[in-house]
């Protein structure tokens, strides 16, 4: 079935440059070039940091990204603690780890749901997000909010995990294991999903190195890097867990990495709950001396990097923030180019960028620069491809 040019959305002038996030140029079905325009979420947070005192910055950076909402404060407090050589109490290290791993679970389930939606498996979407809800309930129970937990503090954590909450947390995790097994079976063993995702959006190991990609995107291309193991923080060196690496670099590999990481996260939290000692949760830091510090953590999307410099006053004089998507999204220049438009939606989503970024996609004809499709159309195309694959394999639509 040949694909005809689709009626453009809206009375746009054909040559008007829409400031979209991803501009895909196509020749027929093939993506031949991509323009990535970022800055939609730029709110000048680094500059705002210089006008807030050290404790206020923790709340500010939480709102860099809602899904990795604890990774940024975690990296920031690590940076300040590196700067001032602060010793964080043991119990606080465990609590930080538990919160960070719960965030990884909710983030990977979120991605699984969105990816399912993009390729037309809406039941995967609904089920993944359904199983995400109890995790958010636990967050609300422990921290008071489903998102933006405000747990990290320079020198410790702001709230304790109460003894009576622990059995509920344990039960939620125990109930999650069969759910993850179900997703693993549904996704990894499904021949249509294999056909849909295998060999698509490949990033080779050398490309992953040259583009300095991070997180599951890197580990799916055979790069064995994980900040939790390489430069341990929190309680990661006090519990045993595995770094999940796959070699193929395609979207199927990225999916497998994220699903298997769910098991590891559940195991890490359960070990932390066992080993967590009683005691203080806050080092009661008063002043930050002059100096510079670096903190990085393994957010669900990859390494979150913060650099902080202090001159001894109560505000940072420089705060550099680098989110993992900054490196991963750029690599779409390689991964998405050369593929077809029906694979574009899932390829762009495979590095797990902000949800909003995946909304802002347009497809332009390379020769005329005429806009022919938008993000919603791309998702529809992707879903249609899955339907065709199902039919060709004799599955009911």
């Amino acid at each position: 079935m040949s694909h005809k040019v689709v009626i453009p959305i809206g009375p746009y002038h054909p040559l008007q440059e829409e400031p979209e996030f991803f501009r895909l140029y196509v020749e027929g079905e093939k993506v031949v070039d991509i323009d990535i325009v970022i800055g939609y979420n730029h709110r000048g947070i680094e500059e705002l940091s210089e006008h807030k005192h050290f404790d206020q910055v923790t709340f500010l950076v939480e709102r860099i990204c809602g899904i990795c909402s604890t990774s940024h404060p975690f990296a920031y407090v690590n940076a300040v603690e590196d700067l001032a050589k602060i010793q964080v109490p043991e119990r606080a290290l465990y609590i930080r780890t538990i919160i960070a791993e719960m965030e990884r679970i909710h983030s990977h389930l979120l991605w699984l749901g969105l990816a399912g939606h993009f390729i037309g498996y809406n039941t995967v979407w609904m089920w993944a997000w359904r199983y995400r809800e109890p995790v958010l309930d636990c967050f609300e129970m422990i921290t008071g909010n489903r998102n933006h937990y405000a747990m990290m503090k320079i020198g410790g954590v702001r709230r304790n995990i109460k003894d009576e909450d622990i059995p509920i947390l344990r039960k939620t995790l125990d109930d999650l294991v069969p759910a993850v097994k179900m997703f693993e079976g549904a996704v990894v063993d499904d021949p249509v999903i294999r056909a849909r995702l295998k060999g698509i959006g490949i990033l080779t190991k050398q490309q992953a190195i040259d583009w300095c990609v991070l997180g599951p995107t890197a580990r799916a291309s055979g790069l064995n890097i994980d900040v939790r193991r390489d430069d341990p923080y929190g309680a990661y060196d006090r519990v045993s867990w595995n770094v999940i690496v796959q070699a193929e670099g395609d979207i199927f590999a990225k999916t497998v990495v994220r699903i298997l990481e769910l098991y590891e996260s559940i195991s890490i939290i359960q070990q932390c709950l066992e080993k967590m000692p009683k005691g203080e949760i806050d080092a009661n830091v008063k002043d930050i001396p002059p100096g510079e510090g670096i903190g990085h953590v393994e957010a669900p999307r990859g390494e979150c990097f913060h650099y902080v410099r202090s001159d001894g006053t109560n505000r940072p004089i420089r705060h550099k923030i680098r989110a993992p998507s900054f490196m991963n999204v750029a690599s779409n220049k390689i991964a998405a180019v050369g593929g077809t438009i029906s694979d574009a939606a899932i390829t762009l989503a495979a590095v797990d960028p902000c949800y909003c970024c995946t909304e802002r996609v347009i497809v332009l004809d390379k020769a005329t620069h005429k806009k022919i499709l938008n993000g919603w159309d791309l998702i529809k195309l992707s879903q249609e491809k899955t339907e065709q694959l199902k039919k060709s394999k004799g599955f009911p639509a």
Partner: protein
Amino acid sequence: MSIVDKIKEGLGDKIIDWYQHASRRIYISIKPSDIKEVAQILFRDLGLRLATASGQDTPVGLEILYHFSFDKTGEIVSVRVIIKDKKKPEIDSLAPLFPAAEWIEREMWEMLGIKFIGHPNLKHLLLIDEWPQEQYPLRHQHES
């Protein structure tokens, strides 16, 4: 040989200053003119990963810290350069060496006004194209 020794050996007298802040935090100072060679040695020869680069407006010049991570041991080696000329700050781009440097340098250009010589695409990344020229959000107004 530890990575620290390999770096000392590889960079030789390009290292102006060496400071070890913590077991995995090392800061090296070099001349801006040496950055391309140093990056080649660290990234290609010794296999460190560029985590990011942070630019900063200081009283003595525009400082860039290139943060290289040696993932096998978790050490972060931050290479510091100070560009003294604030009116026309320039330094060699690392983008021809590896594509990951492209966006990192574009951000530093639009926030601080540092020109990266040899960069293939030095235009606005985060700010709108119509952002007023010579207005760099992270530059401070210093009292003389």
